[in-house]
């Protein structure tokens, strides 16, 4: 499966990876090699098979609707890269 620079840029953009121009070509090459290997999947006969949605036990484990203690603000924001009073401060959305 060939993969071009445009696709790599698109994917890098979706994932906010900030790939630099110099990195795009190399990434395209590597992804092409991996996708080529992965394309082997197309040979599998999967007619009529459901995708696996879970492994392990059946059943729907849910929680009871109970309030548990929240974190103190100081701990919640302990690692924040920007703060203003009790709010998380982030760069302009543009």
């Amino acid at each position: 499966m060939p993969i071009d620079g445009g696709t790599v840029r698109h994917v890098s953009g979706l994932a906010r990876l900030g790939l630099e121009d110099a990195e795009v070509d190399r990434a395209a090459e590597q992804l092409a090699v991996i996708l080529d290997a992965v394309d082997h999947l197309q040979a599998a006969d999967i007619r009529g098979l459901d995708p696996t949605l879970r492994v392990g036990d059946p059943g729907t484990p849910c929680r009871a609707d109970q309030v548990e203690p929240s974190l103190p603000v100081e701990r919640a924001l302990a690692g924040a890269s920007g703060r203003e009073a009790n709010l998380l401060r982030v760069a302009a959305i543009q």
Partner: protein
Amino acid sequence: MTQGSSGRRLAEVLSQWEPVIGLEVHAQLLTRSKMFCGCRADYAGLPPNSNTCPTCLGLPGALPVANAAAIRMTVRTGLALQSRIPEHSKFDRKNYFYPDLPKGYQISQYDLPLCVGGWLEFDVGGTERAARITRVHLEEDAGKLLHAGEIQRAGFSLVDLNRAGVPLMEVVGEPDLRSPAEARAYLVALRQLLVYLGVNDGNMEEGSLRCDANISLRRPGEESLGVRAEVKNLNSFRILQRALEHEVVRQAALLESGATLTPETRGWSEAEAATVPQRGKEEAEDYRYFPDPDLPPIRCDPDEVAAIRSELPELPRARALRLRQQHNLSFDEARGLTERPGEADHFEQLVAAGAPPATAAAWQLNELAGLCQRAHRSIETSGLDLGQLARLLLLVQRREVSAATAKTVLAQALETGADPVGLVEAGGLRQLSDEGELTDRVDQAIAARPQAARDFLAGNDRALSALVGHVMAATRGRADARRVDELLRERLTREGGG
């Protein structure tokens, strides 16, 4: 935009174009805790970022576990909308980056929602209508972004994650609505239903109920759909209707000028009284939905669904119909009394306590509603004793207490908690119904206000109210105003003619 030239333009457009409207309504569920963690679902008034935990902060390693009550509430809503509840459902991840979305994805439902299909009945202009429901699904709310000024121009944004992870139910409607007024009526009915079901507080102002609309135009009789615009954040009935009216006129103008529409996202600008384009995202949206591997698929056991169905309350339309038939009320009265479940309960309890239904209906909808509003209370929390209130309304119905007196004692009762009937007795406020005394009072009023009497005789019917007012004042409201009116007319016309 319902008056003046713009109103005429709207009417003209609506005669030539058919709007095709569908609503997507998001409702925060009235659970105690969030959708996937134990933080509070009710974050009102909490200091910013004080209602978070590793799960809703999206810290590495923290995991979601679904709130069973939120799933039940969604199924309950689906059942009330006649939806099908498939046995198998699942949560999916909707991936995108935004600072109010801590995990970088929203847990939502993509191709297997909890509820499929159904319809909502509503009234518009006295006509019964129904619109189909596409689906009802469950997801998590995002946090709140705060900006100084407009988002595009702000130098930075501030994030409060108290709301992140609150259970959010989305009711997606089919594009079955054919006018802005219908869209409004649909939303009114849906809001009422959700409040009845106890799944949402109906508070659009606070954003616990939010609405987006899809709208396109086509020529009447056409089958295919036009190019639609999505109008976001229409968070009041008024804004919904105004924005859609504006959009109808805007799209019609473009179509009539021969322009080609492109699908777009718009918002309502109160300042411009218009819908305005919302800034497009940099890439085409590609949310990369896939089943959330942290949350095993949901199985809605048919027995559990049946149990939820059996617990459904009487829904507003059924209740209104029953009240009309049971108590011989008008359509408007029945609808008014059933607007909120608490009001309807209050009415039924009042009747059960002995109040005459017609009087109880009229008083609850008018005087009592007004008095409670002034006292900043709701009917249900008025603090009035239902038995005492019922006895008072019985006296009103029997015309032993005048409406004016009843209002006065009710106001006092609301303030002090006193028994209103006790206030009537203590103040000797039973209605003056002695014909002899009433006639004397009427004659005194005519003598005291000769000009008003002359005006009335000269054909000014309104002058009579001054004379009625005089009698009511002189009797401290105890006189039967209706009888006073009758006696005044009798005396004046006899004198004038005689």
